[in-house]
Protein backbone atom coordinates (compact mmCIF):
# COMPACT_ATOMS: atom_id res chain seq x y z
CA UNK A 1 0.00 0.00 0.00
CA UNK A 2 2.89 2.35 0.76
CA UNK A 3 4.35 1.94 -2.74
CA UNK A 4 0.94 2.38 -4.33
CA UNK A 5 0.39 5.57 -2.33
CA UNK A 6 3.72 6.92 -3.54
CA UNK A 7 3.01 5.98 -7.17
CA UNK A 8 -0.43 7.52 -7.09
CA UNK A 9 0.56 10.48 -4.97
CA UNK A 10 -2.05 9.83 -2.30
CA UNK A 11 -1.67 11.60 1.00
CA UNK A 12 -3.14 9.93 4.02
CA UNK A 13 -3.06 11.75 7.31
CA UNK A 14 -0.69 9.91 9.64
CA UNK A 15 -2.79 8.35 12.42
CA UNK A 16 -1.77 9.03 15.98
CA UNK A 17 -0.53 6.43 18.40
CA UNK A 18 -1.58 6.80 21.98
CA UNK A 19 -0.39 3.37 23.14
CA UNK A 20 3.02 4.41 24.44
CA UNK A 21 1.97 7.64 26.14
CA UNK A 22 1.66 5.99 29.54
CA UNK A 23 5.27 4.80 29.36
CA UNK A 24 6.26 8.16 30.85
CA UNK A 25 4.20 7.31 33.94
CA UNK A 26 6.35 4.31 34.77
CA UNK A 27 9.56 5.99 33.66
CA UNK A 28 8.85 8.89 36.01
CA UNK A 29 10.44 7.09 38.94
CA UNK A 30 13.74 6.58 37.13
CA UNK A 31 13.68 10.10 35.76
CA UNK A 32 13.39 11.62 39.22
CA UNK A 33 15.31 9.08 41.33
CA UNK A 34 18.22 8.13 39.06
CA UNK A 35 18.61 11.10 36.74
CA UNK A 36 17.92 13.79 39.29
CA UNK A 37 15.15 15.44 37.28
CA UNK A 38 12.18 16.96 39.05
CA UNK A 39 8.72 17.32 37.56
CA UNK A 40 8.26 20.84 36.27
CA UNK A 41 4.62 20.61 37.32
CA UNK A 42 3.18 21.14 33.87
CA UNK A 43 2.50 19.37 30.61
CA UNK A 44 0.78 20.23 27.37
CA UNK A 45 -0.66 18.67 24.28
CA UNK A 46 -0.20 20.37 20.93
CA UNK A 47 -2.47 19.82 17.95
CA UNK A 48 -3.19 21.39 14.61
CA UNK A 49 -6.77 22.61 14.22
CA UNK A 50 -8.49 22.36 10.85
CA UNK A 51 -10.37 25.24 9.23
CA UNK A 52 -13.82 23.83 9.74
CA UNK A 53 -16.92 24.41 11.79
CA UNK A 54 -16.84 20.75 12.80
CA UNK A 55 -13.53 21.30 14.53
CA UNK A 56 -14.84 24.33 16.36
CA UNK A 57 -17.63 22.17 17.73
CA UNK A 58 -15.00 19.79 19.06
CA UNK A 59 -13.27 22.70 20.80
CA UNK A 60 -16.44 23.52 22.71
CA UNK A 61 -16.90 19.87 23.75
CA UNK A 62 -13.29 19.65 24.85
CA UNK A 63 -13.68 22.74 27.02
CA UNK A 64 -16.62 21.10 28.77
CA UNK A 65 -14.79 17.83 29.39
CA UNK A 66 -11.71 19.60 30.69
CA UNK A 67 -13.75 21.80 32.99
CA UNK A 68 -15.24 18.72 34.66
CA UNK A 69 -11.86 17.01 34.82
CA UNK A 70 -10.22 20.10 36.28
CA UNK A 71 -12.87 20.48 38.96
CA UNK A 72 -12.47 16.83 39.96
CA UNK A 73 -8.71 16.88 40.31
CA UNK A 74 -7.90 20.48 41.04
CA UNK A 75 -5.50 20.69 38.10
CA UNK A 76 -5.30 24.03 36.33
CA UNK A 77 -6.16 23.50 32.67
CA UNK A 78 -5.67 26.19 30.04
CA UNK A 79 -5.92 26.42 26.29
CA UNK A 80 -3.74 28.58 24.08
CA UNK A 81 -2.93 29.12 20.43
CA UNK A 82 0.75 29.59 19.63
CA UNK A 83 2.30 31.81 17.00
CA UNK A 84 2.41 28.93 14.49
CA UNK A 85 -1.36 28.41 14.59
CA UNK A 86 -1.18 25.25 16.70
CA UNK A 87 -3.48 24.83 19.67
CA UNK A 88 -2.32 23.80 23.12
CA UNK A 89 -4.07 22.38 26.11
CA UNK A 90 -1.81 22.82 29.12
CA UNK A 91 -2.19 21.27 32.56
CA UNK A 92 -0.58 22.31 35.79
CA UNK A 93 -0.51 19.93 38.70
CA UNK A 94 1.98 18.84 41.31
CA UNK A 95 0.88 15.24 40.75
CA UNK A 96 2.74 13.89 37.71
CA UNK A 97 0.30 11.01 37.10
CA UNK A 98 -2.45 13.62 36.97
CA UNK A 99 -0.63 15.39 34.16
CA UNK A 100 -0.30 12.18 32.15
CA UNK A 101 -3.93 11.20 32.53
CA UNK A 102 -5.18 14.66 31.51
CA UNK A 103 -2.95 14.64 28.43
CA UNK A 104 -4.31 11.19 27.59
CA UNK A 105 -7.87 12.39 28.05
CA UNK A 106 -7.36 15.25 25.59
CA UNK A 107 -5.67 12.98 23.05
CA UNK A 108 -8.40 10.39 23.35
CA UNK A 109 -11.13 13.00 22.90
CA UNK A 110 -9.56 14.22 19.66
CA UNK A 111 -9.11 10.70 18.42
CA UNK A 112 -12.66 9.69 19.20
CA UNK A 113 -13.97 12.58 17.15
CA UNK A 114 -11.89 11.49 14.15
CA UNK A 115 -9.24 14.17 14.52
CA UNK A 116 -6.51 11.91 15.89
CA UNK A 117 -4.20 12.70 12.98
CA UNK A 118 -4.24 16.35 14.03
CA UNK A 119 -2.25 15.59 17.21
CA UNK A 120 1.36 16.71 16.98
CA UNK A 121 3.06 16.22 20.33
CA UNK A 122 2.65 16.06 24.07
CA UNK A 123 5.23 17.87 26.16
CA UNK A 124 6.18 17.10 29.76
CA UNK A 125 8.21 19.68 31.57
CA UNK A 126 11.00 18.65 33.93
CA UNK A 127 13.57 20.59 35.84
CA UNK A 128 17.23 19.67 35.89
CA UNK A 129 18.33 21.87 38.74
CA UNK A 130 17.20 25.28 37.51
CA UNK A 131 17.05 24.52 33.81
CA UNK A 132 13.99 23.14 32.08
CA UNK A 133 14.17 19.88 30.16
CA UNK A 134 11.25 18.53 28.17
CA UNK A 135 10.26 15.03 27.27
CA UNK A 136 8.28 15.22 24.05
CA UNK A 137 5.88 12.46 23.00
CA UNK A 138 5.48 12.24 19.23
CA UNK A 139 1.98 10.97 18.39
CA UNK A 140 3.04 10.09 14.86
CA UNK A 141 5.93 7.89 15.94
CA UNK A 142 4.55 6.68 19.25
CA UNK A 143 7.75 7.41 21.14
CA UNK A 144 9.55 10.01 23.23
CA UNK A 145 12.55 12.26 22.78
CA UNK A 146 14.24 14.82 25.02
CA UNK A 147 14.33 18.52 24.24
CA UNK A 148 16.74 20.60 26.32
CA UNK A 149 16.93 24.30 25.49
CA UNK A 150 20.49 25.58 25.86
CA UNK A 151 21.77 28.83 27.27
CA UNK A 152 21.26 31.10 24.25
CA UNK A 153 17.83 31.48 22.63
CA UNK A 154 17.32 28.99 19.80
CA UNK A 155 20.18 26.80 21.01
CA UNK A 156 19.70 23.20 22.10
CA UNK A 157 21.86 21.43 24.61
CA UNK A 158 22.45 18.40 22.39
CA UNK A 159 24.92 16.73 24.76
CA UNK A 160 22.39 16.73 27.56
CA UNK A 161 19.66 15.44 25.25
CA UNK A 162 21.81 12.56 24.05
CA UNK A 163 22.74 11.70 27.62
CA UNK A 164 19.10 11.67 28.70
CA UNK A 165 18.09 9.57 25.71
CA UNK A 166 20.84 7.06 26.41
CA UNK A 167 19.93 6.84 30.09
CA UNK A 168 16.22 6.28 29.41
CA UNK A 169 16.61 3.94 26.43
CA UNK A 170 15.51 0.93 28.44
CA UNK A 171 12.48 2.37 30.16
CA UNK A 172 11.03 4.67 27.53
CA UNK A 173 10.47 4.08 23.84
CA UNK A 174 12.98 6.70 22.67
CA UNK A 175 13.01 7.96 19.08
CA UNK A 176 16.11 6.51 17.44
CA UNK A 177 16.33 8.88 14.49
CA UNK A 178 17.70 12.10 15.92
CA UNK A 179 16.57 14.03 12.84
CA UNK A 180 13.06 13.57 14.20
CA UNK A 181 13.83 15.24 17.53
CA UNK A 182 11.88 18.32 16.57
CA UNK A 183 12.25 21.20 19.00
CA UNK A 184 9.15 22.99 20.27
CA UNK A 185 10.30 26.51 20.98
CA UNK A 186 8.01 28.75 22.91
CA UNK A 187 5.80 25.92 24.12
CA UNK A 188 3.36 27.35 26.70
CA UNK A 189 4.32 24.60 29.14
Amino acid at each position, binding site marked *: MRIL*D*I*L*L*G*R*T*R*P*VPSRLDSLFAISTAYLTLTADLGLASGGSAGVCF*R*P*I*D*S*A*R*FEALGADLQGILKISGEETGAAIRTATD*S*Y*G*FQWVTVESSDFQELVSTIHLVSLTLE*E*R*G*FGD*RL*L*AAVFRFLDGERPVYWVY*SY*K*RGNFYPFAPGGAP*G*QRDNARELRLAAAMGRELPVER*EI*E*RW*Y*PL*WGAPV
Partner: protein
Amino acid sequence: MRTRWYGGDTGLTVRMFVTMSLLFAIYLAFLAVLFWAGVGYITVAVVGGILLLVQYLYSDRLVLWSLGARTVSPTEEPGLHAMLDRLAALADLPKPRLAVVDSEIPNALATGRSQRSAVVAVTRGLTERLDPPELEAVLAHELTHVKNRDVMVITIASFLSTVAFFVMRNFAFMGFYGGRRGRDQGGAGAFAAVYLASLLVWLISFFLIKALSRYREYAADRGAAIITGAPSQLASALLKISGTMQRIPQRDLREVEGMNAFFIFPAISAGSVMELFSTHPSLEHRLARLERMQREMEGRIEDPGHSSGADASGPFAA
Protein backbone atom coordinates in the same frame (compact mmCIF):
# COMPACT_ATOMS: atom_id res chain seq x y z
CA MET B 1 -15.90 3.54 11.24
CA ARG B 2 -14.72 6.89 12.42
CA THR B 3 -15.63 10.05 10.63
CA ARG B 4 -12.96 11.28 8.29
CA TRP B 5 -12.59 15.01 8.10
CA TYR B 6 -11.12 15.00 4.61
CA GLY B 7 -12.51 13.70 1.34
CA GLY B 8 -10.77 11.43 -1.13
CA ASP B 9 -10.18 12.01 -4.81
CA THR B 10 -10.72 8.80 -6.73
CA GLY B 11 -10.76 10.65 -10.06
CA LEU B 12 -7.22 11.90 -9.56
CA THR B 13 -5.97 8.46 -8.55
CA VAL B 14 -7.55 6.86 -11.61
CA ARG B 15 -6.12 9.45 -13.97
CA MET B 16 -2.67 9.11 -12.50
CA PHE B 17 -2.87 5.34 -12.79
CA VAL B 18 -4.00 5.50 -16.43
CA THR B 19 -1.23 7.97 -17.32
CA MET B 20 1.42 5.79 -15.75
CA SER B 21 0.09 2.66 -17.43
CA LEU B 22 0.11 4.37 -20.82
CA LEU B 23 3.66 5.55 -20.25
CA PHE B 24 4.69 2.05 -19.30
CA ALA B 25 3.00 0.58 -22.40
CA ILE B 26 4.68 3.12 -24.68
CA TYR B 27 8.07 2.33 -23.19
CA LEU B 28 7.55 -1.39 -23.54
CA ALA B 29 6.63 -0.92 -27.20
CA PHE B 30 9.72 1.22 -27.67
CA LEU B 31 11.96 -1.44 -26.17
CA ALA B 32 10.27 -4.05 -28.37
CA VAL B 33 11.05 -2.01 -31.51
CA LEU B 34 14.66 -1.54 -30.43
CA PHE B 35 14.96 -5.24 -29.79
CA TRP B 36 13.35 -6.16 -33.09
CA ALA B 37 15.62 -3.84 -35.03
CA GLY B 38 18.62 -5.21 -33.22
CA VAL B 39 19.84 -1.70 -32.59
CA GLY B 40 22.42 -1.61 -29.86
CA TYR B 41 20.11 -1.91 -26.91
CA ILE B 42 23.16 -2.64 -24.80
CA THR B 43 24.45 0.79 -25.71
CA VAL B 44 20.98 2.17 -25.04
CA ALA B 45 20.93 0.54 -21.62
CA VAL B 46 24.41 1.77 -20.69
CA VAL B 47 23.84 5.31 -21.93
CA GLY B 48 20.38 5.40 -20.37
CA GLY B 49 21.67 4.01 -17.11
CA ILE B 50 24.36 6.66 -16.89
CA LEU B 51 21.89 9.42 -17.76
CA LEU B 52 19.46 8.22 -15.12
CA LEU B 53 22.13 7.84 -12.47
CA VAL B 54 23.57 11.30 -13.08
CA GLN B 55 20.11 12.81 -13.07
CA TYR B 56 19.18 10.92 -9.92
CA LEU B 57 22.34 11.69 -8.00
CA TYR B 58 23.01 15.26 -8.99
CA SER B 59 19.73 16.84 -10.03
CA ASP B 60 19.06 18.22 -6.55
CA ARG B 61 22.44 19.89 -6.23
CA LEU B 62 22.23 21.10 -9.83
CA VAL B 63 18.82 22.65 -9.30
CA LEU B 64 19.83 24.37 -6.07
CA TRP B 65 23.11 25.55 -7.52
CA SER B 66 21.52 26.97 -10.66
CA LEU B 67 19.02 28.89 -8.55
CA GLY B 68 21.65 30.20 -6.19
CA ALA B 69 19.89 28.57 -3.25
CA ARG B 70 21.70 28.65 0.06
CA THR B 71 20.90 26.22 2.87
CA VAL B 72 20.15 28.06 6.07
CA SER B 73 20.59 26.88 9.66
CA PRO B 74 17.96 27.15 12.42
CA THR B 75 19.86 30.06 13.99
CA GLU B 76 19.69 32.05 10.74
CA GLU B 77 16.00 31.40 10.06
CA PRO B 78 14.42 30.31 13.35
CA GLY B 79 10.85 31.11 12.27
CA LEU B 80 10.95 29.23 8.97
CA HIS B 81 12.71 26.29 10.56
CA ALA B 82 10.20 26.03 13.38
CA MET B 83 7.36 26.13 10.85
CA LEU B 84 8.97 23.41 8.73
CA ASP B 85 9.73 21.32 11.83
CA ARG B 86 6.13 21.13 12.87
CA LEU B 87 4.84 20.40 9.40
CA ALA B 88 7.42 17.66 8.90
CA ALA B 89 6.45 16.17 12.25
CA LEU B 90 2.76 16.23 11.28
CA ALA B 91 3.57 14.57 7.96
CA ASP B 92 5.84 12.06 9.74
CA LEU B 93 8.89 12.99 7.67
CA PRO B 94 12.51 13.35 8.75
CA LYS B 95 13.47 16.99 8.77
CA PRO B 96 14.42 18.22 5.29
CA ARG B 97 17.08 20.85 4.79
CA LEU B 98 15.87 24.38 4.26
CA ALA B 99 17.31 26.65 1.58
CA VAL B 100 16.65 30.26 0.71
CA VAL B 101 16.95 31.84 -2.75
CA ASP B 102 17.69 35.55 -2.93
CA SER B 103 15.05 36.30 -5.53
CA GLU B 104 12.13 38.66 -5.62
CA ILE B 105 10.01 36.13 -7.52
CA PRO B 106 7.80 34.42 -4.94
CA ASN B 107 8.27 30.69 -5.40
CA ALA B 108 9.19 27.48 -3.63
CA LEU B 109 10.49 24.09 -4.64
CA ALA B 110 11.37 20.73 -3.19
CA THR B 111 14.14 18.54 -4.49
CA GLY B 112 16.31 15.65 -3.40
CA ARG B 113 16.29 12.00 -4.38
CA SER B 114 15.06 10.63 -1.09
CA GLN B 115 13.13 11.76 1.95
CA ARG B 116 16.38 11.97 3.90
CA SER B 117 18.28 14.10 1.41
CA ALA B 118 15.33 16.34 0.61
CA VAL B 119 15.74 20.10 0.42
CA VAL B 120 12.89 22.58 0.56
CA ALA B 121 13.77 25.95 -0.93
CA VAL B 122 11.84 29.20 -0.72
CA THR B 123 12.61 32.57 -2.28
CA ARG B 124 12.89 35.79 -0.32
CA GLY B 125 10.00 37.11 -2.38
CA LEU B 126 7.82 34.31 -1.03
CA THR B 127 8.65 34.79 2.64
CA GLU B 128 8.13 38.54 2.31
CA ARG B 129 4.84 38.48 0.45
CA LEU B 130 2.94 35.67 2.17
CA ASP B 131 1.35 35.64 5.59
CA PRO B 132 2.59 32.88 7.93
CA PRO B 133 -0.43 30.55 7.36
CA GLU B 134 -0.03 30.92 3.59
CA LEU B 135 3.70 30.30 3.78
CA GLU B 136 2.94 27.23 5.86
CA ALA B 137 0.57 25.94 3.18
CA VAL B 138 3.27 26.36 0.51
CA LEU B 139 5.82 24.52 2.69
CA ALA B 140 3.29 21.74 3.22
CA HIS B 141 2.81 21.51 -0.56
CA GLU B 142 6.57 21.05 -0.98
CA LEU B 143 6.71 18.53 1.86
CA THR B 144 4.03 16.49 0.08
CA HIS B 145 6.25 16.42 -3.01
CA VAL B 146 8.96 15.00 -0.74
CA LYS B 147 6.58 12.53 0.84
CA ASN B 148 5.27 11.36 -2.56
CA ARG B 149 8.87 11.12 -3.83
CA ASP B 150 7.95 13.15 -6.88
CA VAL B 151 11.55 13.79 -7.95
CA MET B 152 12.13 10.04 -8.14
CA VAL B 153 8.81 9.29 -9.82
CA ILE B 154 9.28 11.95 -12.51
CA THR B 155 12.94 11.01 -13.04
CA ILE B 156 12.05 7.37 -13.60
CA ALA B 157 9.05 8.29 -15.72
CA SER B 158 11.17 10.48 -17.98
CA PHE B 159 14.00 7.99 -18.22
CA LEU B 160 13.06 6.15 -21.42
CA SER B 161 11.73 9.35 -22.90
CA THR B 162 15.22 10.79 -22.48
CA VAL B 163 16.66 7.64 -24.05
CA ALA B 164 14.28 7.93 -27.00
CA PHE B 165 15.33 11.52 -27.49
CA PHE B 166 18.96 10.49 -27.28
CA VAL B 167 18.49 7.71 -29.86
CA MET B 168 16.76 10.15 -32.17
CA ARG B 169 19.48 12.75 -31.89
CA ASN B 170 22.44 10.41 -32.15
CA PHE B 171 20.96 7.94 -34.54
CA ALA B 172 24.02 7.29 -36.69
CA PHE B 173 26.13 6.81 -33.61
CA MET B 174 23.77 4.27 -32.10
CA GLY B 175 23.57 2.26 -35.30
CA PHE B 176 27.31 2.27 -35.72
CA TYR B 177 28.13 1.07 -32.26
CA GLY B 178 25.18 -1.19 -31.72
CA GLY B 179 26.05 -3.32 -34.72
CA ARG B 180 22.80 -4.50 -36.31
CA ARG B 181 23.97 -8.03 -36.42
CA GLY B 182 21.57 -10.84 -37.24
CA ARG B 183 19.29 -8.69 -39.38
CA ASP B 184 20.28 -9.47 -42.94
CA GLN B 185 17.73 -7.35 -44.73
CA GLY B 186 17.07 -4.92 -41.88
CA GLY B 187 19.03 -2.05 -43.36
CA ALA B 188 17.09 1.05 -44.19
CA GLY B 189 13.75 -0.38 -43.03
CA ALA B 190 14.90 -1.06 -39.49
CA PHE B 191 16.66 2.27 -39.46
CA ALA B 192 13.49 4.12 -40.35
CA ALA B 193 11.42 2.10 -37.90
CA VAL B 194 13.72 2.86 -34.99
CA TYR B 195 13.84 6.52 -35.88
CA LEU B 196 10.08 6.73 -36.18
CA ALA B 197 9.58 4.80 -32.94
CA SER B 198 11.95 7.08 -31.07
CA LEU B 199 10.19 10.14 -32.42
CA LEU B 200 6.75 8.80 -31.51
CA VAL B 201 7.83 7.62 -28.06
CA TRP B 202 9.43 10.94 -27.30
CA LEU B 203 6.40 12.89 -28.53
CA ILE B 204 3.75 10.82 -26.74
CA SER B 205 5.74 10.47 -23.53
CA PHE B 206 6.28 14.23 -23.53
CA PHE B 207 2.56 14.80 -23.12
CA LEU B 208 2.12 11.90 -20.72
CA ILE B 209 4.90 13.16 -18.47
CA LYS B 210 3.43 16.66 -18.51
CA ALA B 211 0.06 15.20 -17.54
CA LEU B 212 1.66 13.12 -14.79
CA SER B 213 3.44 16.20 -13.50
CA ARG B 214 0.14 18.09 -13.36
CA TYR B 215 -1.52 15.27 -11.45
CA ARG B 216 1.37 15.26 -8.99
CA GLU B 217 0.72 18.97 -8.45
CA TYR B 218 -2.93 18.34 -7.66
CA ALA B 219 -1.83 15.57 -5.32
CA ALA B 220 0.62 17.90 -3.58
CA ASP B 221 -2.12 20.53 -3.22
CA ARG B 222 -4.36 17.92 -1.61
CA GLY B 223 -1.55 16.76 0.65
CA ALA B 224 -0.81 20.31 1.76
CA ALA B 225 -4.48 20.82 2.63
CA ILE B 226 -4.54 17.57 4.59
CA ILE B 227 -1.36 18.42 6.52
CA THR B 228 -2.32 21.99 7.40
CA GLY B 229 -6.06 21.39 7.59
CA ALA B 230 -6.58 24.64 5.69
CA PRO B 231 -7.11 24.37 1.90
CA SER B 232 -8.15 28.00 1.73
CA GLN B 233 -4.72 29.17 2.92
CA LEU B 234 -3.05 27.40 0.01
CA ALA B 235 -5.61 28.86 -2.38
CA SER B 236 -4.86 32.32 -1.05
CA ALA B 237 -1.11 31.73 -1.35
CA LEU B 238 -1.49 30.55 -4.97
CA LEU B 239 -3.51 33.64 -5.78
CA LYS B 240 -0.89 35.89 -4.27
CA ILE B 241 1.98 34.11 -6.01
CA SER B 242 0.27 34.11 -9.40
CA GLY B 243 -0.72 37.73 -9.04
CA THR B 244 2.88 38.72 -8.49
CA MET B 245 4.17 36.35 -11.15
CA GLN B 246 2.33 38.17 -13.88
CA ARG B 247 3.84 41.49 -12.99
CA ILE B 248 7.43 40.26 -13.04
CA PRO B 249 9.39 41.16 -16.19
CA GLN B 250 9.92 38.33 -18.65
CA ARG B 251 13.71 38.43 -18.69
CA ASP B 252 13.98 37.36 -15.10
CA LEU B 253 11.44 34.63 -15.60
CA ARG B 254 13.22 33.01 -18.50
CA GLU B 255 16.29 32.51 -16.39
CA VAL B 256 14.40 30.13 -14.15
CA GLU B 257 12.08 28.63 -16.72
CA GLY B 258 13.99 25.37 -16.95
CA MET B 259 13.21 24.68 -13.33
CA ASN B 260 9.48 24.86 -13.79
CA ALA B 261 8.72 21.23 -13.00
CA PHE B 262 10.09 21.69 -9.50
CA PHE B 263 8.36 24.92 -8.61
CA ILE B 264 5.11 25.32 -6.76
CA PHE B 265 4.07 27.69 -9.51
CA PRO B 266 5.57 27.77 -13.02
CA ALA B 267 7.55 30.86 -13.91
CA ILE B 268 5.51 31.54 -17.00
CA SER B 269 2.58 33.88 -17.03
CA ALA B 270 -0.74 32.07 -16.83
CA GLY B 271 -2.70 31.69 -20.02
CA SER B 272 0.28 32.18 -22.30
CA VAL B 273 0.66 28.48 -22.95
CA MET B 274 -1.82 25.71 -23.41
CA GLU B 275 -2.28 23.67 -20.26
CA LEU B 276 -1.43 20.51 -22.21
CA PHE B 277 2.18 21.63 -22.55
CA SER B 278 2.47 22.74 -18.96
CA THR B 279 3.93 20.94 -15.96
CA HIS B 280 1.39 22.70 -13.75
CA PRO B 281 -2.40 22.78 -13.87
CA SER B 282 -4.03 26.14 -14.36
CA LEU B 283 -4.68 28.33 -11.34
CA GLU B 284 -8.46 28.09 -11.80
CA HIS B 285 -8.38 24.29 -11.71
CA ARG B 286 -6.21 24.22 -8.62
CA LEU B 287 -8.40 26.75 -6.82
CA ALA B 288 -11.55 24.83 -7.76
CA ARG B 289 -10.16 21.64 -6.26
CA LEU B 290 -9.05 23.36 -3.08
CA GLU B 291 -12.46 24.93 -2.76
CA ARG B 292 -14.06 21.51 -3.10
CA MET B 293 -11.80 20.17 -0.33
CA GLN B 294 -12.79 23.04 1.91
CA ARG B 295 -16.46 22.22 1.29
CA GLU B 296 -15.88 18.55 2.04
CA MET B 297 -14.22 19.45 5.31
CA GLU B 298 -17.33 21.30 6.35
CA GLY B 299 -19.29 18.17 5.57
CA ARG B 300 -21.17 19.73 2.71
CA ILE B 301 -20.52 18.09 -0.61
CA GLU B 302 -22.53 19.86 -3.23
CA ASP B 303 -21.86 17.71 -6.25
CA PRO B 304 -21.41 14.09 -5.23
CA GLY B 305 -21.17 13.16 -8.93
CA HIS B 306 -17.74 14.72 -9.14
CA SER B 307 -15.87 12.06 -7.26
CA SER B 308 -17.23 8.56 -7.12
CA GLY B 309 -18.18 5.85 -4.68
CA ALA B 310 -16.94 5.52 -1.16
CA ASP B 311 -14.82 8.63 -1.25
CA ALA B 312 -17.66 10.99 -1.95
CA SER B 313 -19.56 9.68 1.04
CA GLY B 314 -16.43 9.77 3.21
CA PRO B 315 -17.34 12.64 5.49
CA PHE B 316 -20.79 11.18 6.03
CA ALA B 317 -19.65 7.67 6.89
CA ALA B 318 -20.55 7.23 10.54
